[in-house]
């Protein structure tokens, strides 16, 4: 050996409480750090392309269709321009898209082909560290898209109230929710065909979740179905904040995402444990 003897390592193995001891080492930042380092080798243009999708919708539908529509009534009874109506919905969608991108297809690849988690879980890291770190990384892209979109909204004068600032933490919450559930669902997927089901669910949800018009146009039964889906909660929450149509009801949407995040984290962790620590 050519190297001189180094000092004995000074780090100590993390020890946690019994409950989380086997699944959490308190080191999800190492997983997040890995994700950030890995983006160095990825194609920035591809990352950037995801941002433009909702922008194109805003330009085409907002300007095109918007010229035919004069004012839409929000849930709280406020009348706003069509552009100001769909912009917050597209903001929620951009957060969702970014979060879903990394937490589904990329996770699917890392899990089944790159054997990334297998390597991670051979270290002192636990499945909850992996879940939290990967989900945090996935939501970052959602947050990035959303911030970009907020700037576009500001430029077009579509942020109608100061509470639009609160839309930022709101989109963070939304991205977290989608990343969390997205990774949980992906962890159960075994084939590419199954992955296509995710797209099959995402598209109708994008179109029907009060994105382009109020859901009151639907029969009551359909409205209930849409109100179960996460994007509707995201759209309503963000729309309330950017248009300034505040109500205590917004807190239900926050609660919805808190539950979604929790469920996603629990199932992702369980699944990682079942797959790689069996």
């Amino acid at each position, binding site marked *: *050996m*050519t*190297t001189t*003897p*180094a*000092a*004995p*390592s*000074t*780090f100590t*193995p*993390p*020890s*946690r409480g019994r409950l989380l*001891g*086997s699944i959490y*080492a308190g*080191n999800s930042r*190492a*997983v997040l*750090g*890995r994700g950030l*380092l*890995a983006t160095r*080798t*990825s194609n920035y243009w591809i990352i950037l392309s995801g941002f433009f999708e909702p922008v194109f919708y805003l330009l085409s539908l907002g300007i095109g269709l918007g010229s035919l529509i004069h004012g839409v009534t929000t849930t709280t009874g406020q009348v706003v321009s069509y552009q100001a109506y769909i912009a917050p919905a597209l903001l929620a969608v951009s957060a969702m898209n970014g979060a879903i991108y990394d937490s589904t297809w990329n996770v699917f690849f890392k899990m089944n082909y*790159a*054997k*990334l988690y*297998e*390597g*991670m*879980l*051979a*270290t*002192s*890291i*636990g499945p909850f560290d992996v879940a939290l770190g990967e989900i945090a990384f996935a939501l970052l892209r959602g947050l990035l898209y959303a911030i970009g979109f907020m700037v576009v909204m500001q430029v077009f004068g579509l942020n109608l109230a100061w509470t639009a600032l609160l839309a930022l933490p709101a989109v963070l919450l939304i991205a977290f929710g989608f990343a969390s559930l997205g990774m949980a669902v992906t962890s159960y997927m075994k084939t590419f065909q199954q992955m296509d089901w995710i797209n099959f669910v995402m598209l109708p949800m994008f179109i029907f979740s009060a994105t382009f018009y109020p859901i009151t146009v639907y029969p009551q039964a359909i409205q209930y179905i849409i109100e179960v889906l996460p994007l509707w909660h995201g759209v309503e929450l963000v729309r309330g904040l950017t248009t300034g149509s505040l109500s205590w009801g917004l807190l239900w949407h926050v609660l919805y995402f808190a539950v979604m995040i929790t469920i996603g984290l629990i199932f992702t962790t369980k699944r990682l444990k079942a797959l*790689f*620590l*069996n």
Partner: protein
Amino acid sequence: MRAFRGNPAGQSSGLGSYPVPQAVITASSLTKKYKDFVAVDGISFEVAPGESFGLLGPNGAGKSTTMRMVGAVSTRTSGDLSILGLDPNDHGPEIRSQLGVVPQQDNLDQELRVRDNLIVYGRYFGIPARQVARRADELLEFAQLTDRAKSRVDDLSGGMKRRLTIARALVNDPRILLLDEPTTGLDPQARHILWDRLFRLKEQGTTLVLTTHYMDEAEQLCDRIVVVDKGAIMAEGSPAALIKQYSTREVVEVRFGSDRNAQVATQLDGIGERSEVLPDRILIYSDNGEAALTRIVERGLSPMTSLVRRSSLEDVFLRLTGRSLIE
């Protein structure tokens, strides 16, 4: 760090110099079942600190499953297992923090450069960034990959990837290094480079546990091996002791053509201590191979090819199971 520390004077890594070697791995009646399939069937063994211990067996013998249980990433069905005095059922992360794992298939991070692979892996163990950067450079040196530090993993040769995987496994300064078929699929030159690296670790007192189906690998690297087949241990001992116990000093390999081997075998009675008839050749076990070969020729049998060689673990395995290691 342990992997790089020379042995302090007066303390060798050999087994004998430890007054009472406390086993770093103790398995007793270790069993793993998948539904109806028994992958590991009640095996028991101990590994002493500084020892180089091998699990030798064919594919499907339960070696990898055993390694996964020892690596605290697979839960045993029954039996007892203690790694560094801890039960992996209760202390998985603590145990894993002190292990280095080289899996059968490289699972290097393809999205990261060579040096970043080491750094990120060290971060998984919670090693501070500055410390792990220094460690990464030492390990690149050790793995003879310093000039490839910024390369993509994909651009490395098979042998280089393997060395990087071993370097990665050393990043947390492990007390035990687990290697699952470390040289499978490598060309002879790459294997020898790898053996050299592993031998250095062994010399420095790193506890090595490796699985292999190459007898030459086991002979080169292991102080002690267990021969496993169908999830059970068939024999245990040092390579030399196993050969002595289960084989003769030398072996004569003769070929009479695939059609004639079985027929000729009956005419070889009395030559050597015993023989094995394989589809492509006949093995005759004798302490004096040349003499045995002379007697074969004296009987008027003329083999197409003949070879006298020393007995190897392959012969031990054949004796114990009636089958070849590599099929």
